[in-house]
């Protein structure tokens, strides 16, 4: 028995992803508000060594399901493992990451557990003993407060929004055996992109380009700035549709919704569907020749000038500061 606040830690290639610590610390907060335990679930093969780190970020207990059938990730195997642990241990709240894998798994769990979920939340709190989740709708053109009548109350958390807090405590680790039935999906291949490339949904800094970049080669100046700042390069729909950047880089209502600490929009006018995808960034910078561009209305700092002159100068300045 437990009545705990549970979260599913995400690991890849034997390492916990950053969002897992954000989940642990958020579960801790909610558990404290309810006076219950924060419990982590890790699924994979050879992953028991990862459990201790979750304790440091707030988990009282960590349930490890170590099974060769859980690697590589498949929806079916992970759904069975998480659903079993959550049900057997009385999860009242179940949190996952709104990452590619977390979105796939959490939605399937909603079906399996016949409950409700607030997806891609930017804030969660306890009110009257119940979870209240705040989440962007219409890609951030408005927000909804959601309560869950089903059980467990599920929420997926947007990566990079919640703070991971190290508490220095060690969590108790429990190994759980779950019999995994074979699924109907086989992973044939995982093709990794160039090493060192940061995905826009996970980046602390995004340098993004739009129509003003003129062509694919124009993005070289953004790559350089992103390189210095340890960030990722994003793109507007116009730039992606022109074939200048990969679809996986697109930020906006029909691309990825991002929330970095710093979003630098270069040559992006600021169509409403783009603004929707990046307005939850902590700081927004706009560089554009057109002083009337709508992007300036959303920017914390604006520079009206030729981006091909400003960006290299900014790169040089940043090199001095961070280099």
């Amino acid at each position, binding site marked *: 028995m437990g009545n705990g606040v549970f979260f599913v830690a995400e690991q890849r290639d034997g390492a916990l992803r950053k969002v897992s610590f954000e989940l642990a610390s958020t579960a801790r907060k909610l558990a404290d508000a309810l006076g219950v335990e924060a419990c982590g679930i890790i699924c994979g093969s050879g992953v028991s060594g990862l459990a201790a780190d979750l304790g440091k970020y707030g988990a009282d207990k960590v349930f490890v399901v170590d099974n060769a059938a859980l690697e590589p990730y498949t929806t079916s195997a992970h759904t069975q493992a998480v659903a079993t642990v959550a049900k057997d241990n009385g999860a009242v709240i179940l949190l996952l990451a709104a990452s590619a894998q977390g979105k796939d798994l959490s939605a399937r769990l909603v079906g399996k557990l016949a409950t409700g979920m607030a997806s891609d939340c930017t804030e969660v709190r306890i009110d009257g003993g119940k979870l209240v989740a705040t*989440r962007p709708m219409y890609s951030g053109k408005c927000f909804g407060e959601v309560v869950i009548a089903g059980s467990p109350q599920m929420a997926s958390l947007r990566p990079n929004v919640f703070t991971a807090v190290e508490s220095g405590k060690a969590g108790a680790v429990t190994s759980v055996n779950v019999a995994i039935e074979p699924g109907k*999906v086989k992973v*044939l291949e*995982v093709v990794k992109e160039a090493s060192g490339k940061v995905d826009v949904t996970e980046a602390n800094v995004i340098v993004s380009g739009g129509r003003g970049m003129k062509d694919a080669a124009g993005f070289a100046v953004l790559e350089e700035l992103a390189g210095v700042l340890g960030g990722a390069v994003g793109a507007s729909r116009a730039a992606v549709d022109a074939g200048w950047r990969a679809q996986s880089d697109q930020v906006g209502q*029909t691309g990825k919704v991002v929330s970095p600490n*710093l979003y630098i929009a270069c040559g992006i006018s600021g169509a409403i569907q783009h603004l929707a995808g990046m307005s939850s960034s902590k700081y927004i910078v706009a560089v554009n020749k057109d002083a009337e561009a709508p992007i300036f209305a959303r920017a*914390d700092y604006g520079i009206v000038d030729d981006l091909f002159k400003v960006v290299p*100068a900014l790169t040089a*300045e940043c090199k001095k500061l961070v280099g």
Partner: protein
Amino acid sequence: MNIVACVKQVPDTEAQIKVKADGTGIEEGGIKWVMNPYDEYGVEEALKLKEKLGGEVTVVSVGPARAMETIRTALAMGADKGIHIDDAALNNADAFTVASALCAAVKSLSCDVVFCGQRAIDDDSGQVGAILAELLGVPQVTMATKMELADNVAKVTKSIEGAQVVMEVQLPCVITTTKGLNEPRYASLPGIMKAKKKPVDVKTGADFGVSAELKAQVVKVLPPPARPPGKVLKADDTPEGKAAELAKALREEAKVI
């Protein structure tokens, strides 16, 4: 091959969203309604499969009366028939309830592949496809960017952070679709004329035994938090001066670099 494409009618991406004063939802006046862009990829993929392998494409939508326009759009693109689940009780239903209604509709057909957009760009939940797969008891691949089908097995690619995953999935299955999968066709004029005569069954939740016992509820809709007005940097009136001023502000005020 029997294929289902689930579609939802949503506000156009250029739509300004205004929250009702009482926080119960959004003002619908003046909104241009379109097919959810992610669903277009599903309709297109369904039509491509039909063209290659033969069979029938059924479009299913849960939505108010106006959702019929979106069903007709899919029929004009080339789908054969439609099911419109029009029930006021389902208008603001949660993902589980919508998936339950879709599940009943899909079960009324004998179906090999179901396509859903990876998320609808209105509520942004991104849950319905996977819940539907679970309720149907079939496998899912979410956010597909590439798909090939042979001998009842689909080879599907999806993007995750920093990698592409290639999977084989046995039919029947649910595939959720995203940008990159294909280029959705436009409805042709003859297509639009033909669509008017294609059959669409209009059903209620009760017809499918679905009640709206909500498991998740949006209790309040809020406008986005206001951002304080920004600063335009003008130092020296040169690109270099402005860049230096920005770097300093990001370092010292914002503390983000």
